[in-house]
């Protein structure tokens, strides 16, 4: 039975680049996949595109392509990525230009479009999961992108693309697309599609399945995290999967690393909703069959819902924040006093916040008062953060923390402040039939 090898070259937009080069050079891959698009990234990218029609794709696209294209071309590795963000066409043009600079004549680059449904959705009264309707957001709406499945990616590969660049696609679809193409999987073979989703789900966060985000000294030790290797999935025609990595790279692939990633961001394991299938991971089994080799079986799937999730980015509010540190005996008490003063100052000077939060970093910032009860830290860092209607009001919060230097408790140091616009994301569902995907090709 035929097997193909998929590597994950990035688990988020800012991820390390060297492990992807290592995979392209030594991974004996058929495909190298880069997942680089977080929930709200596309809303920020859309704003960049409004300012410059050639912008709005991943800021590291050019650096990544320059780094991996030569080895990918030499070794016959095809690339699939969602680095197109809000502008897959411009991302494909930029990649074409890089391929030309590198002398990679004839390299074929595909851009998948159709995920941007802002035009269709803008004036609809469709409900969002945050309680608003789309038209209720008015001109605060920044983006609306549907999560595409694997079919357009498979189409681009069938048409001979060496590089496929999408905007918003469901993360596992980036891996499912090549599997559909290579093995000619039917789009209604739900168990197979479910297995393909498991492949994508386990690989999409790159280092998170090879020992990254896992180490806990004395309990879960991982060697050489500074040289962490990214994962390779060996996938058989029947969806059978082995997770491994390049020999000699840092990290480890064990039953435990695979199980942690298996449940990462999963709700009901029997019903993982995806554009092409509802995947079922509830009966998955995981077995170590060699050093850094883990065999994964038992995934399945049931028919897709016919609806696609749409992420809607919108300008939600403004947030202002200030921090300052206290140390030594009484640090906690001085930190508490500092917070009281800032709260009173904000009230006295008429700063209106819809939400105001204060933390003592080092004591209760992560899990609140209950879980941190009874612990006395040597130092604390006061953090006051609030949500406002305007940027000017947001700035006032950090300013009131900063004035603690000369007006607050003794020994405050290292004050810091920030104010920013908050682009938030809400979601809704639309019929799959309302989304029209297209593929455009470019050649170096």
């Amino acid at each position, binding site marked *: 039975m035929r097997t193909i090898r998929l590597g994950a070259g990035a688990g988020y937009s800012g991820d390390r680049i060297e492990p992807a080069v290592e995979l392209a050079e030594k991974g004996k891959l058929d495909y190298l996949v880069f997942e680089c698009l977080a929930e709200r990234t596309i809303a920020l990218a859309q704003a960049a595109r409004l300012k410059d029609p050639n912008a709005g794709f991943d800021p590291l696209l050019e650096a990544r392509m320059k780094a991996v294209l030569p080895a990918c071309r030499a070794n016959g590795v095809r690339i699939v990525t969602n680095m197109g963000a809000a502008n897959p066409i411009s991302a494909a043009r930029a990649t074409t230009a890089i391929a030309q600079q590198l002398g990679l004549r004839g390299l074929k680059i595909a851009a998948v479009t159709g995920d941007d449904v802002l035009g269709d959705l803008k004036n609809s009264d469709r409900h969002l999961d945050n309680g608003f309707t789309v038209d209720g957001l008015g001109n605060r709406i920044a983006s609306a992108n549907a999560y595409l499945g694997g079919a357009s990616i498979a189409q681009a590969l069938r048409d001979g693309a060496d590089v496929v660049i999408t905007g918003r696609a469901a993360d596992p679809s980036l891996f499912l697309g090549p599997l559909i193409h290579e093995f000619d999987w039917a789009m209604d073979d739900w168990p197979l599609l479910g297995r393909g989703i498991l492949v994508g789900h386990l690989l999409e966060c790159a280092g998170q399945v090879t020992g990254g985000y896992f180490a806990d000294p004395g*309990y879960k030790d991982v060697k050489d995290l500074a040289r962490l290797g990214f994962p390779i999935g060996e996938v058989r025609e029947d969806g059978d999967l082995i997770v491994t990595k390049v020999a000699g790279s840092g990290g480890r692939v064990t039953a435990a690393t695979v199980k942690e990633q298996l449940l990462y961001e*999963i709700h*009901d394991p*029997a019903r993982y909703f995806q554009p092409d299938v509802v995947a079922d991971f*509830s009966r998955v089994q995981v077995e170590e069959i060699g050093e850094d080799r883990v065999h994964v079986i038992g995934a399945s799937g049931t028919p897709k819902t016919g609806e696609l999730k749409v992420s809607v980015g919108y300008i939600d509010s403004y947030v202002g924040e200030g921090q300052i540190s206290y140390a030594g005996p009484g640090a906690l008490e001085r930190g508490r006093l500092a917070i009281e003063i800032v709260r009173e100052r904000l009230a006295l000077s008429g700063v209106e916040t819809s939400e105001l939060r204060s*933390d003592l970093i080092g004591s209760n910032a992560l899990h609140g*008062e209950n879980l941190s009860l009874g612990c006395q830290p040597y130092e604390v860092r006061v953090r006051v*953060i609030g949500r406002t209607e305007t940027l000017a009001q947001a700035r006032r919060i950090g300013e009131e923390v900063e004035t603690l230097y000369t007006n607050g408790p003794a020994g405050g140091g290292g004050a810091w402040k920030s104010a920013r616009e908050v682009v938030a994301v809400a979601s809704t569902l639309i019929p799959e039939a309302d989304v029209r995907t297209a593929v455009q090709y470019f050649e170096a």
Partner: protein
Amino acid sequence: MKLRDIAHSRTGDKGNTSNVSLIAYDPNDYDVLCTYATIDRVKQLFDGIVNGEVTRYELPGIGALNFVMTEALGGGVTRSLAIDAHGKSLSSALLNMDLPDDLRSGSNE
């Protein structure tokens, strides 16, 4: 004895919902997880953090539980004012949950 002695954990986020896995190092300890990591104890642990429902999914095939907690991320990752907006560190709080000390003989530690 703590859950950390027999299990590991990872947190994931989607909107305002957090999921925290709890995975036995030794599949034989799966029953211990089921007995002691109950929905009620997890709710109590995250009192003040989780404002919604806690659901527990059981995965005996890999010796794991998956806790799904709604209204757990300060209104949602993209607008939360929390320092750990994703709730990534919640897994460490779960592993700090107490277990009876006399369970130790049955564990792999």
